[in-house]
């Protein structure tokens, strides 16, 4: 029995190694990252015609599951890996997956273009999204009830917002959960009393509110300089995870390229923010 499982392990290792030597990389995971990952893959394949890269989405959770089952080489994630997922990886291949930060994403707060609100503090945001503040006049707007638009709880954006803005408290039950950032924008653009959040790269149709870290600090717009200088308070990293045993040859070269100046230029084209210089690969 033992020899059998050992030999099958060896076989699996040979097969996966064979796959990566043949110059084929599979990438799976977060839907937030899927467009960026495709752009990376296209450009990289254009330069190195010997490499084939297959990109698919599905969600960070799906990506981590595939990483555990060794059904994918790279796993895109819009959130950090969870302890239970690390555990599953260790059980599957005896090692922690290696984490690479690959891009920066700033989160904007949107309101309708008709809303007179211009700036808001992080604390007020938390109170609005947990349902403590229910009327715009409490934050200096019109006398109108607030409609809260949120994302599906499967989204990395949702989790990030919950942990970092709401400090782990629950979203109000009446928060409308929308299937994507574009849908949040669409809804907020049509709803005068609406408020929503999403990637800073999106934005047509609604107004981005400047955010203050607290009452005393200045209001900051979610522009690239402000996000990269870490002045703007709501931002996150996007990640790629890899099984350390596979992090060599083509896969390692690809990962390095993603985090080089050239790869990071594409990040900007897709609408996220490139990594700060000290995190890049030379």
């Amino acid at each position, binding site marked *: 029995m033992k020899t059998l499982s050992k030999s099958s392990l060896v076989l699996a290792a040979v097969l996966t190694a064979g796959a990566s030597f043949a110059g084929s990389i599979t990438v799976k995971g977060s839907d937030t990252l899927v467009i960026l990952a495709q752009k990376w893959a296209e450009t990289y394949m254009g330069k190195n015609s010997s490499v084939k890269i297959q990109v698919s989405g599905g969600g960070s959770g799906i990506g981590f599951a595939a990483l555990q089952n060794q059904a994918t080489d790279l796993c895109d994630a819009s959130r950090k890996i969870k*302890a239970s997922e690390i555990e599953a990886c*260790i059980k599957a291949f005896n090692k922690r997956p290696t984490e690479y930060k690959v891009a920066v994403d700033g989160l904007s707060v949107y309101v309708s273009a008709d809303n007179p609100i211009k700036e808001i503090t992080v604390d007020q945001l938390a109170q609005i999204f947990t349902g403590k503040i229910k009327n715009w006049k409490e934050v200096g707007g019109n006398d109108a009830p607030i409609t809260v638009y949120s994302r599906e709880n*499967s989204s990395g954006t949702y989790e990030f917002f919950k942990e970092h803005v709401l400090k782990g408290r*629950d979203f109000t*039950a009446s928060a*409308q959960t929308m299937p994507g950032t574009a849908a949040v924008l669409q809804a907020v653009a049509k709803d005068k009393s609406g408020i929503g959040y999403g990637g800073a790269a999106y934005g047509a149709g609604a107004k981005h509110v400047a955010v203050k870290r607290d009452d005393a600090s200045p209001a900051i717009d979610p522009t690239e300089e402000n996000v990269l200088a870490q002045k703007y308070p709501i931002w996150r990293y996007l990640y790629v995870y890899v099984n350390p045993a596979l992090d060599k040859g083509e896969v390692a070269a690809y990962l390095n390229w993603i985090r080089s100046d050239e790869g990071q230029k594409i990040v900007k084209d897709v609408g996220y923010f490139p990594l700060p210089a000290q995190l890049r690969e030379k």
Partner: protein
Amino acid sequence: MSGRRAASTRPDLRFYMTRGQHHGKRSHGWMGIHRGHRARPLEWCAEKFIFLVSLSAILMVFLIFIFVAREAMPIFLGQMNSALVLPMIAPGDIDKLKPAELRAYLNLSEKQFAAMDKETLQSLLEVKAEAQNEIPEEFRNDPDAKLNTTEWRYMIQPRQWNGYDKPEYIWQPVGQIKKYNLVPLIVGSLKSTLIGLLFAVPLAVGAAIYVSQLARPRVREVVKPVIEMLSGIPSVVVGFFALLVMATVLQSLFGYQTRLNAFVAGIALSFAVIPLVFSIAEDALTSVPRSYTQAALALGASRWQTAWQIVLPAALPGVFAAVVLGFGRAIGETMIVLMVCSASVMSWSIFDSARSITTTIAAEMAEAVNGGPHYRILFMLGAVLFAVTFVANMIGDLVMHRLKQKLEGKR
């Protein structure tokens, strides 16, 4: 004319309408083959193939159910633990533990445990400890942090969670303290489904009566295909239309506060339900024997009276089947409800938002940790949905059978 032809080719309806009539009159040979003449080899093969396909359909239903039930079983058996703060063993204490204790703590199978070296076990312990150490201080001391929220009482009954003013039904499956109350989802599903049916059934059955009994042939030739064409619209398109256009129009008509709510979802759902109910009800009405209508008209009844008092009652089992299938379609519809409303608020008001079971499964499955409590609960919701539609279809079938017997004067 075309309607009548459609009726005879629609297998499910024929099953409902004629079941029981042929029993005993025709003998079935092996695998359903019994003919006066010998079947040609090709026909024989085709028949066998079709039989196998239908067998595989039954097998598929069975396999899907087994799969869903298997994934959901740990929840039913109460084997999951979703508590935030768990008893922790320091990674340095690895040598003090007995192997059996270590194996139980790490939740490993014998085989997995045997295959692991000490280093791997050590890193597993470290991961567990890290996860516990990462919990923010305020949550570590939260009175709810030690609760296993996958217990039935937390999934069914309201609870006053820390930070809430009163006991509430909360579905917040992602976060520090995970709240898995199913009641808002069940209510949400029922709310949008019932609104959809209330709206769709009178319209669809009315249209079916009109088209099959009252309309002139030329009108019928236009109206029937047009209504049936509705079912060809992908539900994601209906959802998008509802999200962008209907929500705005309905809000300006009724003036309610929440723009996207169960009412809009219900109306949008009825777009999906109307063609289905219409088509089956129309077939049922058309297949009422001509002689009924002719007899009623000959006795001096008007066409309306004939339609309402003779044809509709005679076709009632078929119309009822249409409604039951419409219910199944509405409660199982995902995309429309997902796009239009999805806040898991616990409220019976139709002008509040709602989150249906299907929406929840579709939206959350992708990110749920494989094999974790959230993942299992989503599968359990799937099983619940399966059971609900199954029971609804069973009851529908029973009622239909009774109605039929009553109509035929057998009881």
